């Protein structure tokens, strides 16, 4: 069925994307804070197979860059030196998931060669590396916050739907208040209430906590709806007839009915939260320098000269498209399956 293929396609795309980000250290030629002061705003390095003399090399190579005397600030290729691309090189150390140390990088060039596949920013930092490392911040923030929101939504929605009565009233009134506040504004306001200059990891955790704690209302309502109808099912009544406890009913019969909604909500919330983190960081309210977050990568675009002269600074934003495509497709496919099952 089409929705199954869609789902698998989306999952594979997402898995690849997330693997790249998780193993950022391996795939990135450089660290995220490494500056090359001599190469600010260098354009993306071109890979060549044929050299100036017309000889074809099997292994791709790059040229060095030197300043273009005609255009101050621009660069021109220095064809005197060839730097072949090497695979599985030893480079700067990094930690995988903060635990395992390694020095192995997928690609690299030796000596004075520079491999800036996505160009550099104003400090001469490799944008590709910063994109991969930035993903660790932005994507992780989105994932954690979405998980938190949905978890809260399940707990609150299940309690409200299953027990009804005053618990339901109380919880649903609470959710109304949260829904009456525009989400993004609320996020900003809460961020405003927190100290501006605090340690990076604190900002990160705070961001995740705030996003997660604000966004439980909609998932909670949806889950409550499912729970309300699920608990009326005859097989739940039958299980009561065997003397089942509330816990048994909830975990064995009622909550499994919510899985479809849960996964769909997660798939929809992740891009929303990633975008929120990006927005905050873009405006300087999120994770700050030198940590890379996708937002910080894009924030230099607010300056006119960057926007009009250095097109490669857009690339991080473009690379977000496959990520969103993956999550939205997944959410679509899940919603289709939900509809066909419940009919």
């Amino acid at each position: 069925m089409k929705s199954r293929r869609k789902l698998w396609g989306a999952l594979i795309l997402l898995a690849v994307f997330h693997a790249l980000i998780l193993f950022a250290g391996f795939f990135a030629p450089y660290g995220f804070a490494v500056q090359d002061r001599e190469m600010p705003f260098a354009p993306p390095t071109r890979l060549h197979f044929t050299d100036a003399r017309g000889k074809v090399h099997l292994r791709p190579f790059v040229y060095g860059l030197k300043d273009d005397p005609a255009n101050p600030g621009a660069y021109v290729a220095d064809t005197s030196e060839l730097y072949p691309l090497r695979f599985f090189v030893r480079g700067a150390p990094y930690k995988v998931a903060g635990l395992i140390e390694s020095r192995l990088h997928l690609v690299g060039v030796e000596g004075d060669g520079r491999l800036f596949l996505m160009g550099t920013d104003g400090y001469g930092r490799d944008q590709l590396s910063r994109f991969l490392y930035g993903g660790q911040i932005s994507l992780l923030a989105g994932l954690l916050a979405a998980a938190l929101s949905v978890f809260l939504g399940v707990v609150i929605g299940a309690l409200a739907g299953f027990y009804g009565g005053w618990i339901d009233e109380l919880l649903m009134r609470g959710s109304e208040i949260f829904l009456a506040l525009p989400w993004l504004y609320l996020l900003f306001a809460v961020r405003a209430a927190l100290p501006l200059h605090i340690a990076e990891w604190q900002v990160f955790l705070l961001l995740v906590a705030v996003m997660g704690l604000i966004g439980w209302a909609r998932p909670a309502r949806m889950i409550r709806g499912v729970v309300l109808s699920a608990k009326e099912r005859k097989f739940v009544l039958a299980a009561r007839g065997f003397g089942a406890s509330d816990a048994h009913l909830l975990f064995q019969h009622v909550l499994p009915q919510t899985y479809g909604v849960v996964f769909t909500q997660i798939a929809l919330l992740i891009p929303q939260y990633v975008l929120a983190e990006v927005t905050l960081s873009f405006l300087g309210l999120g994770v700050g320098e030198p940590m890379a977050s996708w937002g910080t990568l894009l924030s230099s675009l607010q300056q006119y000269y960057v926007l009009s002269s250095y097109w490669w600074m857009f690339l991080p934003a473009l690379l977000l498209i496959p990520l969103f495509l993956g999550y939205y497709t997944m959410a679509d496919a899940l919603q289709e399956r939900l509809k066909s099952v419940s009919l």
Partner: protein
Amino acid sequence: MRYLARRFVHAILLLLAVSFFSFALLQLAPGDFFDEMRLNPQISERTVEAIRAQYGLDRPLPVRYERWLGAMLKGNLGYSMATNSAVAPLLRVRARNTLLLSGTATALAWLLALPLGVWSAAKRGALGDRIGALATSAILTIPDMLLFLGLLLLAARTGWFPTGGMVSPGIGEANFWSRAKDIAFHLVLPAAGLALVMTPVLMRHVRAAMTEALDSPFIRAARGHGISRGRVLFRYALPAASNSLISLLGFSVATMLSTSMLAEVVLSWPGLGPLLVESIFSRDVYVVVAVVMLSSVFLVMGNLIADLLLFVSDPRIRLENE
């Protein structure tokens, strides 16, 4: 009638709860504006305390809330410590600008989404519908920020449109029409961008609502009676879908103060968005809270209006609640 009164009271209570929430937020700010002042060796601690007392920041919490709420209701939204002016007039101007932008964008979006949505629902499965679905999905997966940045780049590179602001410098003295044209000229890019972002979502919802209406048995019976396609679409299906559409409209109105935030910041439109961001940086908490409250009021009122419209248009809701 009682239903309407009940909904209204409900909205008021909700806003009260929101106000309390916002106020609590206010108090949460660990560093306030005066920390900066305290660091200044030329200002004595006593002066700081005196100013704080003037702003009423030294009283107990419930008293402060009461005074704050009372002042708010009278239209006094506090004092912007950063710009040294009252918040209310500041907000008024910015809110007006925001409404101008989002109002235009919303109207544009609906003008596009409604016919497109209805048409693609009517021609479900046909090539046009599928292209439409593809296009909406494509636009949806592009993050809003990228779209706005792209538009900015377009303006910068081509010079067809101004790259920011609402008015050109020095236009203040010109006559009304010149000023209006100038504003309109500046409005094009942000409004177009915002409308572009809104339309796919709206169109999907319209299409879904129409599809549901078209699938209902009574529509098929109408076709079976030989009523023409066009008549069925406009005189039968559209009214049947109107419930969802009215809710959608209410939602559009409700979010009018908040959807344009990113567009305003990226494209430098002087609305509530940039104000909020500036206030956060300058720790101007009264402005922050006022902006949140104002947009919340809009949201709740928007939903209330949607409820009212539904009540008026759908006899079933009237019956249920009388």
